[in-house]
């Protein structure tokens, strides 16, 4: 009788311990699943940034190309670019050629927009398979970008890393037919 009672108490104790163990296993599994879910979750992209950067890139290119340049005889910027790529027949105020005035213009409009908004950009205007008519990126006006995207090589020299400079980009693009060939205008707005 005593032995039976002892066995019964022992079984009850065993059941309680198993119950405790089950609770611990459930809790550990829950923590594990929650951790895995957080790890597997895709990195959240800044919705506003990705959307607006794409629009800004495209709008900048289309706006810039359609802008009228009154000091160059009311030609649009697209015509100035084509003239710069061909034979530079258009002359602007103070005897500037289309190519040199293009630089003044772009400096003006970049200052009023992308540079003022602290955007990280690369703007390239080039003849298809040929020379570059204009190139500018944000490192030319902000030294901190240069520091941010440099890496030190094993021999101690510091080198600018182009890959780090524009990891993720939103692009605005336009093609200007030239006959023969074409001029390509590309603006990359990069996410840092």
């Amino acid at each position, binding site marked *: 009788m005593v032995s039976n009672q002892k066995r019964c108490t022992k079984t009850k104790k065993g059941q309680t311990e198993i119950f*405790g163990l089950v609770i611990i296993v459930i*809790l550990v599994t*829950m*923590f594990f699943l*929650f951790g895995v879910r*957080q790890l597997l979750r895709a990195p*959240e992209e800044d*919705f*506003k940034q990705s*959307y*607006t950067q794409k*629009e*800004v890139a495209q*709008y*900048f290119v*289309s*706006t*810039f190309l*359609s*802008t*009228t*340049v*009154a*000091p160059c005889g*009311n030609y*649009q910027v697209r015509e100035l670019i084509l003239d710069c790529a061909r034979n530079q027949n258009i002359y602007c105020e103070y005897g500037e050629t289309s190519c040199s005035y293009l630089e003044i*213009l772009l400096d*003006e*409009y970049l200052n*009023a*927009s992308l540079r003022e*908004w602290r955007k990280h950009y690369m703007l390239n205007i080039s003849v298809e398979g040929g020379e570059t008519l204009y190139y500018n990126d944000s490192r030319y006006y902000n030294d901190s970008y240069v520091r941010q995207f440099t890496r030190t090589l094993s021999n101690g020299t510091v080198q600018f890393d182009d890959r780090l400079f524009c990891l993720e980009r939103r692009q605005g693009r336009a093609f200007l037919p030239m006959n023969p060939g074409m001029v390509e205008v590309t603006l990359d707005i990069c996410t840092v």
Partner: protein
Amino acid sequence: MIFFRLKQKKAQIKMFETIAVLIIFFILLAAGFAFYSNFERHSIKTEQMEQESKEAIEIAQRASLIPELICSSETVTDNCFDLYKVMTFSEMIADEANLNQRMYYYYLFGLSNITITVHPLKNFEREGYILNDSGKRFSIYENIPNTYTSKSVLFYPIIVYEPIYEINHFGVLRVEVYN
């Protein structure tokens, strides 16, 4: 007597053990709950920010598409604003007597501040041109609350068309949305 004391001590140790296990259990539970709620709070905040961003983009799109401001053309011209419409609209919205109109635009733009800046070339002056300074700002809509928790700012390059002289200026549409 000794046997009784020994049993009592054993029971005390058992009880202490049980209490310790319970304390550790509850500490772990509380830590887990704190961790989880922190994560949830973060995701709710992210969702809220995303919602605010969407609202800001919506307002910016509404502003860039209203017929009161965009260029009148037979073909669809993207991101083009008529300078004279912008000037007239800006004057109308600034006039506090036009309460009905201001109310109408409140339903469209809510708590926001919308401006258009026109950037003609520096040092460019020509007789007859309205714009001869280095940049002119027009207020399209202004309803800034006294207190707000967050502010989203959007910029878009736009064409500002001057129909009389058939000139396209480089402009910037700036939309600030308050929450």
